[in-house]
């Protein structure tokens, strides 16, 4: 082979295009670039279309029309004036003329009508006399663009019903607890559950994850025990091996399906540690729970789930602190811990926080492990402590979408909006926090 390559005809160095050929060559290369640019643009547009479809779908369900049927029309009660404009005396008069005397007496016994506020009276009139009833649900697109069809349809089935605009996402929806009546159901219980879970998961996984990341990045090669005695050597070896084992498997751990963490959580936190996670060892017994299916168990499970990602992202943030910073610190006589605490951590903190918040925000959307550990799917009481029963947003949404009534589909869509807003604001908070910490480190 070597003799072959020495043959003179093998020593030609080819030719580069010149003149017209060079120009054509350039334009053909440019053309190829343009084609690729077009393909990349198409990919981007595809992504945007998917996003728009998602948004359309959600909005289409969360807002729209309802067919409402009233027992008594408001105008008939008030001679055409809106209820809100009536005085207290007029409202009481309406109640007295329209309610049966037994109902009236009951109300008086609870609290005299004259002592009640106007809002309260209006509520009573709505509930007891007007009695709105949702008899049909229409999506936003039907409500906006298909009005004649749905009106005709409604007139056939419920001649007295009217079509009204309805936003299923409302302040009432956010602050009311769960109910089996979809029109009255709210998402407060699930929001509180999610927030509780989020905080607790953060509280558990942040120190553990960052601690492990610091050890793996800064101390892995240290020998904490005396090398001169066999036991010390053995311990050092064991520590280094387990650190190495964790390090090489951490990516595998982060890829383990979340349901498996759920099974682990069920076995460990819900069952084995029931005394602890139910609060029994602290003398705390929630009569409605009385087992380990508590927020605490869920948070511990979620912490297991996000821990690998928290460790990985913290490791990356710590690794990104330039070695020159560490050397400068050591060069001044700092110990390792001083260097880690005063130089490495402050510089890595923006990255650590962003990574942690992002990985935990992923956990908000997790449903599978929580189903496995037995989170409640129907619960009307707010969580009050670590040891409460709870539900979370995705579970609540899942529960609603699996019901047949169209009203539930609509509030599920409203719930999805709440979940997305929560997620996006967490991500935004992560970005703002990072920018803030960065700017602080540079300018001070």
């Amino acid at each position, binding site marked *: 082979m070597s003799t072959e390559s020495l043959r003179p005809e093998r020593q030609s160095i080819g030719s580069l295009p010149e003149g017209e050929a060079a120009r054509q060559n350039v334009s053909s290369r440019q053309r190829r670039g343009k084609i690729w640019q077009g393909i990349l643009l198409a990919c981007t547009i595809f992504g945007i279309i998917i996003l728009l479809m998602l948004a359309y779908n959600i909005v289409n369900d969360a807002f729209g029309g309802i067919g409402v049927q009233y027992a008594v029309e408001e105008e008939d009660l008030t001679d055409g004036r809106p209820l809100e404009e009536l005085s207290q005396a007029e409202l009481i008069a309406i109640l007295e003329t329209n309610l049966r005397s037994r109902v009236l007496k009951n109300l008086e016994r609870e609290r005299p009508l004259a002592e009640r506020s106007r809002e309260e009276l209006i509520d009573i009139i709505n509930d007891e006399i007007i009695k709105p009833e949702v008899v049909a649900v229409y999506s936003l697109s039907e409500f906006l663009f298909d009005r004649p069809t749905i009106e005709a349809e409604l007139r056939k089935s419920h001649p007295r019903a009217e079509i009204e605009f309805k936003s299923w996402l409302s302040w009432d929806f956010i602050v009311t607890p769960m109910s089996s009546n979809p029109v009255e159901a709210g998402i407060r219980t699930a929001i509180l559950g999610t927030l509780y879970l989020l905080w607790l998961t953060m509280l558990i996984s942040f120190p553990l994850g960052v601690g492990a990341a610091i050890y793996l990045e800064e101390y892995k090669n240290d020998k904490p025990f005396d090398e001169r005695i066999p036991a010390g050597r053995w311990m050092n070896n064991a520590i280094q091996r387990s650190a190495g084992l964790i390090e090489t498997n951490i990516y595998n751990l982060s890829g383990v399906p979340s349901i498996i963490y759920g099974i682990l959580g069920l076995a460990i936190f819900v069952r084995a540690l029931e005394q602890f996670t139910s609060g029994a060892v602290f003398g705390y017994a929630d009569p409605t729970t009385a087992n380990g299916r508590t927020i605490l168990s869920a948070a511990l499970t979620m912490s297991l789930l996000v821990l690998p990602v928290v460790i990985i992202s913290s490791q990356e943030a710590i690794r990104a602190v330039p070695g*020159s910073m560490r050397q400068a610190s050591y060069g001044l006589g700092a110990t390792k811990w001083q260097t880690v605490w005063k130089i490495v951590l402050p510089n890595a903190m923006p990255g650590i926080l962003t990574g942690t918040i992002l990985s935990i925000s992923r956990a908000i959307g997790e449903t599978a492990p929580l189903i496995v550990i037995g989170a409640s799917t129907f619960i009307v009481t707010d969580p009050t402590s670590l040891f409460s029963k709870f539900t979370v947003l995705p579970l609540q949404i899942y529960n609603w979408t699996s019901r047949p009534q169209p009203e539930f589909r609509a509030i599920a869509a409203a719930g999805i909006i709440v979940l997305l807003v929560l997620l996006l604001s967490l991500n935004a908070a992560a970005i703002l926090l990072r920018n803030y910490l960065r700017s602080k480190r540079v300018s001070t």
Partner: protein
Amino acid sequence: MSTTTMNDSKYAIETRAMNIYYGAFRAVKDVTFSIERNKITALIGPSGCGKSTVLRSFNRMNDLIPGARTEGEVLYHGQNLYDPDVDAVQVRRQIGMVFQKPNPFPKSIYDNIAYGPRINGWKGTRAEMDELVERALVGAALWDEVKDKLNQSGLSLSGGQQQRLCIARAIAVQPEVILMDEPCSALDPISTLKIEELMLELRQRYTIVIVTHNMQQAARVSDYTAFFLMDKEDRAGELVEYDVTSKVFQNPADKRTEEYVSGRFG
């Protein structure tokens, strides 16, 4: 490290048959020389001959490199720095370091200086710290340029100012020896000149060891010069010649030194 062995020897650092390894590779072999107090000693030689390695061995910065190992002795006031009972942290407080690339902390100028004393257990009032910071900055000829913006980030300074900040940071812990590894290689000629002037001033109070590729710089500022060269066979750096700077540059004993300093080599 005990200070009882502190003697009035004229040498700050002495090495005895020093060999430095990176894993199995011997980077520096059999270096024996003594660095005089309150003098500037320049380490010169072609790239890869082990100058930085030797310099880092003086304050045990090589300890931070996994696999690095030093054999032989490095005596500081008669005490071997590599004795098992010597703590590298203690060594580095007394033998400070300035690096090739300016590396101020992303903190304020004030905190950059205050960091060293604080981590070393400094005690005093805020006013005393102000005084300490001022003295360090005056000592590094930076005070006039930064006295109105002590709260600004150290990173907001120019490269040359950053390097003087690093020098101020090093002298704030009151070391005896300052090691400088190519401190001017990232700087423009004017900043370089300023740092050279500064070194000549610092010589009165500190022992300075500097690595440089700039022959004129070595000739201008140093009192002694050590010339290192890589052995052709085992690629380990060795000390070829060590003498008064004027002698090394004008009348070297070794032919290889002459070739190097006259620019016909390396």
